């Protein structure tokens, strides 16, 4: 059963079951740190060799990390019981939630674009419009948001798998596993949101955390070798 003691419409679309709220705050904080670590590594590489791909990589993970921060801020309004129709808290909650959605979508897409290598400005503009549209749809359906993110990370995982098949090294299989875990977690979350099965949501959140932590761990290990 999803939390329904506040604004039923919003909470049923956006929030985890109330009994997992504390856990999600912990998971979200850890994911924020892991994504920030990956972003710092990307920017460190860019500082040394000035290659645009590391800048995009750094920006992508900065956006993902900021998205987690914005979602944590939106939780503050929820915890303080300021989310109700007509309340000022509702507006702020909505703003922070929308920034979370947009930052996560743009960050993940930036990452995917690194692997696609598109130079055509029309295609880029089309992707931008598609993202904007998805962000609006995400406001009414969290499952759509999770599903779209699952597809983006799935694409990145697929490219990482292709690279693993080529390189056959331990770090490449670990990178593939981390992206695959994040992708799968989004689909499980989407399913949980659609079927109202709270355990799916918890499993999705755990899997997503595992994916981000694994990614940060592998890159830190490789970078500090």
């Amino acid at each position, binding site marked *: 059963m999803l939390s329904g003691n506040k604004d039923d419409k919003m909470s049923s679309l956006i929030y985890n079951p109330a009994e997992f709220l504390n856990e999600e705050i912990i998971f979200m904080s850890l994911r924020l740190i892991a994504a920030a670590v990956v972003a710092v590594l990307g920017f460190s590489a860019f500082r040394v060799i000035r290659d645009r791909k590391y800048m995009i990589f750094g920006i992508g993970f900065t956006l993902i990390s900021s998205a987690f921060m914005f979602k944590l801020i939106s939780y503050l309004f929820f915890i303080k019981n300021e989310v109700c129709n007509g309340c000022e808290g509702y507006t702020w909650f909505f703003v922070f939630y929308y920034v979370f959605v947009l930052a996560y979508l743009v960050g993940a897409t930036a990452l995917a674009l690194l692997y696609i290598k598109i130079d055509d400005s029309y295609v880029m503009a089309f992707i931008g419009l598609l993202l904007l549209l998805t962000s609006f749809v995400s406001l009414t359906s969290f499952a759509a948001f999770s599903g779209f993110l699952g597809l983006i990370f799935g694409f990145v995982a697929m490219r990482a798998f292709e690279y693993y098949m080529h390189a056959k090294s331990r770090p490449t299989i670990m*990178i593939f596993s981390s992206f695959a875990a994040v992708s799968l977690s989004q689909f499980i979350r989407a399913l949980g949101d659609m079927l109202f099965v709270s355990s799916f949501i918890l499993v999705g959140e755990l899997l997503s955390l595992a994916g981000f932590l694994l990614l940060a761990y592998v890159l830190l290990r490789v970078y500090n070798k």
Partner: protein
Amino acid sequence: MSSRRNRTEIIYDILDSLIKNQGSLKPTRLLYKANLSHSQMKDYISELTEKNLIVLTEQKGNKTKYEITEEGYKFFNQLNKIREMSDALGL
């Protein structure tokens, strides 16, 4: 078929060639070992010298050699880390 090297890869190859030869090489040997054209050599050497990553030293009998500096070693280590990261990510 090997693809064209980018700027970073060429710098890596120059520093790597120097390190593999006890930190110094004659200009012609460096040109050969790092697989550079004459114009590439001129451009990259001036950039690396400007950044104090390598220095031109004079040996006995007016012979010159390019030598990697302490900063050059540090930069090479950083490049190695970035390469490892790039290899892991497949970027």
